[in-house]
């Protein structure tokens, strides 16, 4: 086992553990903090895979912007034990059971799966911004532009939903 593999295993274990804590921790703020930790760890994984750009973007966008937004929302909502939505015991048991079942069958199905042999060695510079940019604006320009449609639709939608109606105010 090479040192890289050891690091990957440890990092993977930590990521899963922290992701579990997001679900399991009772307090929402802690959940969010664990989520930020998870994103950092995932970025670590990206770096291991030689995808530096994605790692950085992941931290900036998710851990930075989105998570801070989450925290603000949580604080503004002022969640406490009293007004926390109650989920029934039955629901919890069922959810645990379903999740467990999904995990079990997935493991059972995938335990002896064949991983494809690596066909090409990744270049060192593959995940760098420059190469990525080259690809995005030449070969994959169409998907790149398509995603802009997605974003504009999402933006319009968000504004439409969030904006208060004049009639309601009056």
């Amino acid at each position, binding site marked *: 086992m090479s040192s890289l593999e050891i690091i990957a295993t440890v990092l993977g274990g930590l990521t899963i553990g922290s992701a579990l804590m997001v679900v399991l921790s009772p307090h929402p703020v802690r959940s969010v903090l664990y989520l930020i930790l998870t994103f950092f760890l995932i970025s670590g994984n990206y770096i291991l895979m030689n995808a530096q750009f994605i790692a950085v973007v992941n931290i900036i966008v998710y851990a930075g912007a989105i998570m801070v937004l989450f925290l603000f929302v949580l604080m503004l909502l002022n969640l406490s034990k009293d007004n926390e939505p109650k989920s029934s015991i039955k629901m919890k048991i069922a959810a645990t059971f379903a999740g467990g079942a*999904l995990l079990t069958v997935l493991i059972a*199905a995938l335990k002896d799966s064949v991983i494809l042999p690596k066909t090409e060695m990744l270049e060192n510079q593959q995940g760098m911004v420059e190469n990525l940019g080259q690809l995005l604006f030449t070969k994959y320009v169409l998907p790149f532009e398509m995603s802009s449609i997605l974003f504009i639709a999402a933006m319009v939608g968000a504004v439409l939903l969030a904006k208060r109606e004049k009639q309601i105010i009056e």
Partner: protein
Amino acid sequence: MSVQQLVPLILLFPLIGGIINGIFGKKLPKALVGSLATLASTLSFATALMVFFQLNEPVKIHLFRMIDLEDLRLSASLLADNLSLWMVLIITGIGSLIHLFSMGYMKHDAGYSKFFTYLNLFIFAMLILVLGSNYFMLFFGWEGVGICSYFLIGFHYSDAEKGMLNGIAARKAFIMNRIGDLGLLIGLFLILSQFGTLEYQELANIVTVDKILGTPWMMFGITMCLFIGATGKSAQIPLFTWLPDAMAGPTPVSALIHAATMVTAGIFLVVRSNFFFEHAPMTQEIMLYIGLATSLVAAFIAMRQNDIKKVLAYSTVSQLGLLFVALGMGAYTAAIFHVTTHAFFKALLFLGSGSVIHAMSDEQDIRKMGGLRKKIPLTHLTFLIGTLAITGFPLLSGFFSKDEIVGHAFSHNVVIYGILMFSILLTAIYMFRMYFVVFFGTFRGTHEQEHHVHEGPASMTLPLVILAILSVFGGLLNLPGIWLKGQAHWLSHHLEHNTGGLNLIEAEHADNGITLMLMIIAVAVCLGALVVCYLVYGKKQNVPVEDAELSGWQKISANKLYIDEIYNFLFVRPTEWLSVVGHKFIEIMFLNGIILGFAKGIGASGELVKKWQTGRVNWYILWMVGGIVGLIVYYLVKI
């Protein structure tokens, strides 16, 4: 316009008339409804006449495909040849007159537009029946006239007094006809399985030219099935009891449907299928004897009936029996000739009886009439002509047409001839009896009725006059060769000219002496009956007594040979018993349990499934996870 274009028009006019009256009839004024229907029928007749003068060769007109499968092709197409066109002329001609008559007769009826709708539709269906180029079209029209007849028999179903009875009469006609229809349908299937087509011309070619025949049994089966169909529609033993009951319908209906046209559909069917019947001698024999028996039985029953329409109904049955005798001997053209003259004088008699009933304020019992000779002279005169025509009075139409059939019978078998003559004698007796009882003697109705007695409007008398003229001179169509060597048998030659497979059996089989002898006998029978009846009912003014006072053969006759009672015992009771058993044991215990249980099960599972829709997203996602787990488990099991 060419024949190709004209023939569909014949069908179209009554259809359009029926549709317009059916949809808008209630909103239109009565006069317009009646004129429209009459006009439709008359236009049809005029078109048919135009075709009649143009037609030389049989013309087949393809309208559209109905069923187009690999081994079954049925098309809606028409066949205009001299036979079908002759029938068309009878139907539309008599039909127009009866439409005209109905305009006056039905004037005060609430269902005026409904009546004319049905009447037009009936004409349409009847035209399809005769004009269709294959058995499928025939069947279509066959069922069409059946349903129209059902509607029209039960026309006054909501009548307070007789509504129920009218409904039952209509049902009886319908059920009896269904039995015959089933036979016809089986016959069609047999033909289809044996020859692979239902087109008349193709079948005639196969049978007569190519000489490809089925086994004798197959031919017997086919012809018997067709004949069973014919017994239903044309009221032969054992399916004849519906026709007298069908008189529950309005009188013009009885005249048009149950005397002149629809009931001759069976005759038409046999004539159309003559190429089959020629190869099934056994069926021909059966047909002959059934016709003979029907003729005799009906004439016997008619002897002691007192309802004016019932008498006429039984006489129709009797005449139809006579026609089947002719068909059984292969005298197809003679049969069509008699169909024609019978249509004239029977329509005349029915319309005349309608006029009488109209004059008597809806009284149908001849015992309550009498002395109408002076009160409604025109009706009396035309009725007399009709009576003379049906009894075979010399030189009237019935004389010639009956004579031809009788002549065939004489050369066929003297015994049959004798029985036939006896039946004709009975016919003459009961017809004259009715005539004298109705028109001679003193008036026996109530004062109110006496006060009301009047001749109908012109729309009613005009058809009577026209029909009377036709009844007198109809015989000219097919004069026997004894007087006119060259021009004789015009109708027979005309029909044979271009009708596929139709054989003419020459009436000149016997020498003139025998023909003359037969004529003299027939005249003697007719005149004898006339004299006897005049003495008994005309001069002495005997009035038929109540049924209860009759005895011996008279009682049997008055009770219609107890045939209804026998059928009741043989068929109706056991069926009722079976259906009660079926209801109690099979339906309630078995079927209801299953079907209702099934329905309840579906309803209950609907409730159950509805409960799953909790409205909570948690559960929805849980179900989705469940689905994914299920799919992966499927993978684990499968691989």
